[in-house]
């Protein structure tokens, strides 16, 4: 019941005219930037993070909550009206959504996505309120070796489970870990990998890394391959749902939310798996199987709900353990750190007001999004026609502004370019970006926990493995790593059996 009181107090903090205005600005800007082609939710949050630098933490996080859900929703608008989405979480939405739009049902596709996002976002945020305290009380009992194990699990999960090539995933992760090493070692005060450059002593700011890899890398990559003709945007009026479409949508929304939240909350989370599962389920359960592949509304409603619920799910490990499981959560974590706040089990004790205000603003942002998006959809659709030279020039412009604003030093712009070129190379060679970001953020944390564990054991390496929690976690890691090997043997055994 305490949590409920805290949440109500959080609502109290948000519902002042000034803070509601901030939430509204966050949602609007987040959606507007998220709609722009080539800008996914993670890049939206990274690009817009610097505009909150001058605010106090509470207001910054109210705006952030709006940007977070706004960016998510903006991405789905793009995939419905333009197809071929930039971010993997919207790929499934585009399957049916774009076909609905082509068949003249863009208004219904956008409406079921908007309302589904609202329903799933609200359910997801409610579950966040219910689940997080339990995760916190579990996490508070964990020691340094357990934390180390959980962080290692996050590393392995993002590299080995997501993405198609493990060696490329590990290459990306290691680059991220090395970037995370740069700066003064906090225990001994020695400079590592700073090359004698004084500005590198504090390390490279995570915002600079994220903006460089996502925004600059993407802009350069697209510039090298810019389509002569921009993709075709389907015109749309005011989104609305008829009675029949409501009837076909509400069950997929609920099922999608049920798929999305748990997958978002586990370390190997992300939205790819739940959106796919939701799509497959809806295709199986639908009464209109003939429409699938031609624009079935269930195929938009379910995955869109799964996408949003999983976004809420990723906040559970992010807030309760300090563990980001996707790129957007990783940048949220960086935002906390830039205010000197460390997410984790102690967050709810130390920054109780701030956290509950953030959660309350998630509810309010979600509601504002629904109110805003239904009437404004035609405006968002216009944003999709923005001439591409201006769009990518604008991305470089805002990326430079944000990176400079972090420390007000021009050297960050050179770092930004260097990271952008790394991001460009990674896109060229098919190296996944997420492991790098996770490595930059969690690497220093992993080292700190590891050294703390060894301090407790007096330098004995057995100190790295703690109690039952770390046994379980390391077994899971072993399973993930050995799985392809095992699968190969199973396949070979089956193949040998077949000819006989």
């Amino acid at each position, binding site marked *: 019941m305490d949590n409920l009181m805290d949440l109500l107090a959080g609502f109290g903090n948000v519902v002042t005219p000034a803070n509601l205005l901030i939430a509204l600005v966050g949602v609007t800007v987040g959606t507007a930037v998220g709609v722009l082609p080539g800008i996914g939710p993670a890049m939206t949050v990274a690009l817009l993070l610097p505009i909150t630098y001058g605010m106090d933490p509470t207001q910054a996080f109210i705006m952030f909550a709006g940007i977070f859900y706004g960016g998510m929703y903006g991405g789905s608008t793009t995939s419905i009206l333009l197809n071929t989405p930039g971010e993997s979480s919207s790929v499934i939405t585009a399957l049916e959504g774009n076909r609905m739009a082509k068949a003249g049902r863009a208004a219904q596709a956008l409406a079921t996505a908007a309302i589904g996002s609202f329903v799933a976002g609200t359910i997801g945020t409610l579950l966040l309120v219910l689940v997080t305290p339990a995760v916190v009380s579990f996490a508070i009992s964990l020691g340094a070796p357990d934390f180390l194990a959980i962080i290692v699990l996050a590393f392995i999960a993002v590299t080995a489970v997501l993405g*198609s090539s493990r060696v490329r995933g590990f*290459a990306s992760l290691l680059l991220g870990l090395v970037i995370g090493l740069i700066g003064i070692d906090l*225990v001994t005060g020695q400079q590592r990998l700073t090359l004698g450059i004084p500005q590198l002593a504090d390390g490279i700011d995570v915002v600079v890394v994220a903006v460089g890899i996502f925004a600059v890398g993407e802009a350069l990559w697209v510039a090298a*391959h810019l*389509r*002569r003709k921009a993709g075709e945007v389907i015109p749309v009026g005011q989104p609305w749902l008829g009675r029949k479409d409501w009837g076909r949508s509400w069950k997929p929304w609920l099922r999608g939310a049920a798929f999305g939240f748990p997958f978002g909350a586990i370390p190997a989370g992300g939205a790819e798996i739940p959106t796919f599962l939701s799509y497959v389920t809806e295709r199986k359960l639908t009464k209109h199987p003939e429409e699938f592949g031609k624009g079935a509304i269930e195929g938009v409603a379910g995955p869109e709900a799964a996408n949003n619920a999983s976004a809420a799910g990723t906040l559970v490990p992010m807030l309760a353990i300090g563990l980001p499981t996707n790129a957007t959560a990783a940048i949220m974590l960086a935002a906390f750190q830039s205010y000197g706040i460390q997410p984790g089990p102690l967050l709810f004790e130390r920054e109780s007001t701030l956290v509950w205000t953030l959660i309350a603003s998630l509810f309010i942002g979600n509601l504002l999004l629904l109110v805003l998006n239904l009437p404004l959809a035609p405006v968002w659709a216009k944003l999709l026609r923005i001439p591409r030279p201006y769009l990518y020039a604008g991305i470089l*412009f805002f990326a430079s502004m944000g990176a400079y604003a972090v420390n007000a030093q021009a050297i960050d712009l050179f770092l930004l370019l260097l990271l952008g070129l790394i991001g460009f190379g990674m896109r060229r060679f098919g190296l996944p970006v997420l492991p790098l970001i996770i490595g930059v953020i969690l690497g220093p944390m992993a080292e700190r926990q590891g*050294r703390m564990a060894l301090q407790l054991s007096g330098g004995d390496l057995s100190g790295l493995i703690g109690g039952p929690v770390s046994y379980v976690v390391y077994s899971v890691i072993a399973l993930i790593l050995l799985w392809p090997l095992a699968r190969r043997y199973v396949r070979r055994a089956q193949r040998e059996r077949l000819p006989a």
Partner: protein
Amino acid sequence: MTTMNDTAPRSAARDPQGGRSADRAQYGVCAFLALVGIAVIVDTSLLDAVTTTNDPIGPRPVPMLLGALLIVVSVVYAIDVARGGTGEPEGGEDVDLTASMNWRTVLLLVAVFVANALLIDWLGWVISGSLLFWGSAIALGSRRYFLGLAIAITLSLITFYAFAIGLGVNLPAGVLRGIL
């Protein structure tokens, strides 16, 4: 975009004899990873091996481990490439992977970007940011020079007043200090 090729076996990307010429540039990535690994190891070996009872391992083992792992990964990567492995270039709304890489645009963008980094403290954000936007738009193929310049100046003035003066974000006024 759907063609008859869709019926070809999906595993072509992994097949050395699959008709697609191997992507040899990938060896460059392996070399880069190995070089980073060596650099990390060299830098770390120059550190003092400080250990105390509070910190039994000191600052060296973690970077040493990462350097070694980078070298291992670069070798495994090279083996994968030699066996015909390729990474799939990233697609996107505005990406046309069928056309060849347009290096001229990329180099022009890098030049404009560097110019902004060199000029920002002296000229201030409003001027250098305008040049950044205008130059990038032209590099990306915009031919409406005056419109582009107008947008660039408007955008940098708006961001300067809204963020630097309104929200307290760090942006330099440069030579226009006192005028803006």
